[in-house]
């Protein structure tokens, strides 16, 4: 009796000395379903980063780094990818992670009703189990973005046993193989994860629990951090950066996103395109672009917390097309172009979402374009409605942000491909489709850069999307937290985080 009491006491003391700690993270939204196959939101990916390991991951420089797969090898014809898997990895229910689990997961991503991964994995035809720790993914055609796709939700592995046991509601009790396992979720309140003791990389994990609390208002999220109820918050409002810098108890970290903020122009989505000079004439679109000062937009609308850009990837990205640099603002040239196009005072509607960031950007754009003679009418539209209007082509111009993918293909294919779901501009050009497919079929980076350079020059003539800037992912945390490693995908890697 005494002995057990004593050992209990020792355990408790040891636990407190070693720091039985919880990492409390404040999220900007409530995540959607916690099933990597069905998940749709950016914020959900932040939770997955602690919960579900992926086959591979990306680092700060967007290199593919090992996670559940330790190495990979493309076949000579680039039509299959062989993955060597990490040994000794188990899922949170104790089941072994192996090649059969990889096959199960890829097939689940491809076949589960409502899967959001099906499109990402469309070129995957089958998965072969070579041996217990070797899996081969077979493709219908070479597909260079595959590794970056596997570094996201499509590469997340769930326990086949748990997924088969609870097929209808797996997302309510996800079982993966990440550093933390699922404990509970109270919708709109918290998601609680606890340390998985058998995690393969447990030396890098320094917390016993992670809680995620959705707090929509950025001011309140920050207040929670200041009052010590949270340790880390994501998506800090750019306007709060100065006050965080001045606070001795807090630190701030940032990295430029993979995505962009841009203005999509209806150039062929519906009849409306031909009714407006902006949609009808590329010279008017060029004039509109020349009326904008991107650095000014970043400074005024984003408090400097973004990087001005004119392409689908930020200027420091390896795939940025250097042959199409950011144009300088040139009002006389813009006016001359309008004159050449025979348009005086072109008027168009700029559809924006209701967020204050979007509205600020729209107002700055409106004021800048006015100097060149444009009359921009801002139409603030709730997001669900704006998506619908964009899909039907009921807009002139649409201010739209994209969260971005590690491979440029993820920022391009669905937007520029003919009849692709996110091609809101309606621009449909067979030669663009060819370029997009060529970029997919070659694995050579130098070749892909050339393809993107050609596409950049082509799209710069037509301007279906005028890219404005790439936001900084901003995180604030207590000074006590160390090891924060921002990655361009915006997700929080818990490995190495320490209090």
């Amino acid at each position, binding site marked *: 009796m005494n002995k057990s009491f004593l050992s209990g006491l020792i355990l408790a003391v040891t636990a407190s000395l070693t720091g039985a700690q919880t990492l409390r993270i404040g999220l900007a939204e409530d995540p959607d*379903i916690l099933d990597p196959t069905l998940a*749709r939101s950016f914020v959900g990916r932040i939770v997955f980063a602690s919960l579900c390991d992926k086959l591979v991951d990306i680092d700060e420089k967007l290199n593919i780094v090992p996670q559940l797969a330790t190495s990979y090898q493309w076949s000579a014809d680039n039509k299959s990818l062989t993955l060597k898997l990490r040994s000794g990895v188990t899922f949170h229910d104790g089941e072994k992670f192996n090649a059969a689990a990889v096959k199960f997961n890829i097939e689940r991503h491809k076949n589960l009703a409502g899967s959001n991964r099906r499109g990402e994995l469309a070129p995957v035809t089958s998965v072969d189990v070579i041996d217990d720790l070797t899996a081969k993914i077979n493709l219908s055609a070479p597909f260079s973005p595959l590794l970056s796709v596997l570094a996201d939700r499509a590469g997340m592995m769930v326990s086949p046993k748990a997924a088969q046991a609870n097929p*209808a509601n797996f997302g309510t009790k996800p079982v993966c193989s990440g550093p933390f396992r699922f404990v509970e979720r109270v919708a709109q309140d918290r998601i609680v994860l606890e340390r998985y003791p058998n995690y393969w990389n447990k030396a890098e994990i320094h917390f016993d629990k992670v809680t995620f609390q959705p707090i929509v*208002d950025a001011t309140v999220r920050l207040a*929670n951090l200041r009052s010590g*109820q949270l340790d880390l918050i994501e998506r800090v409002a750019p306007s709060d950066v100065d006050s965080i810098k001045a606070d001795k108890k807090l630190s701030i970290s940032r990295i430029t996103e993979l995505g962009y903020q841009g203005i999509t122009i209806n150039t062929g989505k519906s009849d409306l395109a031909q009714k407006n000079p902006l949609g009808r004439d590329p010279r008017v679109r060029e004039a509109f672009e020349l009326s904008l000062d991107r650095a000014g937009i970043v400074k005024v609308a984003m408090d400097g917390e973004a990087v001005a850009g004119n392409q689908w990837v930020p200027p420091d990205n390896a795939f940025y097309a250097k042959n199409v640099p950011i144009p300088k603002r040139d009002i006389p040239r813009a006016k001359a172009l309008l004159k050449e196009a025979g348009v005086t005072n072109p008027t168009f509607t700029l559809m924006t979402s209701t967020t204050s960031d979007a509205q600020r950007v729209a107002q700055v754009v409106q004021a800048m374009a006015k100097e060149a003679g444009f009359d921009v009418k801002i139409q603030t539209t709730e997001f*669900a409605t704006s998506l619908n209007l964009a*899909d039907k082509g009921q807009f002139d111009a649409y201010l739209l942000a994209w*969260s971005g993918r590690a491979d440029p293909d993820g920022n391009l294919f669905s937007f520029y491909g003919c009849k692709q*779901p996110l091609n809101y501009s309606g621009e449909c050009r067979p030669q663009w489709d060819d370029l997009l497919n060529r970029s997919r079929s070659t694995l050579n980076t130098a070749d892909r850069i050339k393809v993107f350079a050609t596409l950049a020059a082509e799209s710069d003539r037509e301007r279906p999307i005028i890219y404005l800037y790439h936001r900084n992912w901003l995180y604030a945390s207590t000074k006590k937290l160390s090891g924060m490693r921002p990655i361009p995908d915006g997700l929080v890697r818990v490995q190495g985080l320490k209090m």
Partner: protein
Amino acid sequence: MLHYLLKRLAAIVPTIFFVTIIIFGLQQLLPGDPAMILAGEDQDPTVIAYLQKKMHLDEPLPVRYAYWIAGVFQGDLGESLRIQQPVLELIKDKLPVTLELAAIAMLIALTIGIPAGIVSAVAKDTVWDYAANMVALWGLSTPNFWLGILLILVFSVSLGWLPASGYVSPFEDLKANLAAMIMPAFVLGNAIAAVLMRHTRSAMLQVLNADYVRTARAKGLDERTVVLKHALRNALTPIITLGALEFGTLLSGAVLTEQVFSIPGFGKLIVDAVFNRDYAVVQGVVLFTSSVYIVLNLLADLAYFFVNPRLRG
């Protein structure tokens, strides 16, 4: 009494039926395709088609209504397509939170509003009356979100006395629960206190001028008995209705406050559901709150019986 009760109960059935049609109909008027918003940023056409089928969006309106109402009769309000949780379970989780918030807010409102209204009526045109009116005006004119953020900055960030936001179940830790609830409850209660104060004041002023109050005073009753027993009791009738309605409003109307304080209650549930076009959640929650509203109204009507003897005749 029984006859009256039965009559009122019978009136509830068509009302609720009408409400279901309104809820369903209004929902259809919301612009945007719910399947598109639920499909997330990738907008995969196969996912959109799958969601449309799952939500019966490919069926005519009456059929969709029939699907929903048939489920409702079987106690099945559907499932949130966004997080895969049954709507009934969500209501079960969120209702106690909002009920507690509403109850504390109401308690604060009653404790401030009714005494302030009485004092202001009894001491009409004195400094007390002006002071009470000023406080009421402040309460009415202060936006909830502003007061909420101000309280957070003062009591959480500067003083560190109260948690900035979040919710702890009272069964887990009562002290932490009350600490988390006091600020949002005050923000909500404050506005209602102002309404109650204004109504109590005007009802009391009307009653205090009535003949029977003069008679009571003439009988030599002390002022305390006149005010509290004779006047207040009559003045309370409209205030009870108002209180019941305000309580109903609290159940669905705590939206901004719940958002600011990140209280996982009904308001937050419904706002998120509307923006995400999570139809089953919106319909389920609105139907539930409307039913509660209707029942509260009935209870208020019944309460008249006990407060006002004339109705009993």
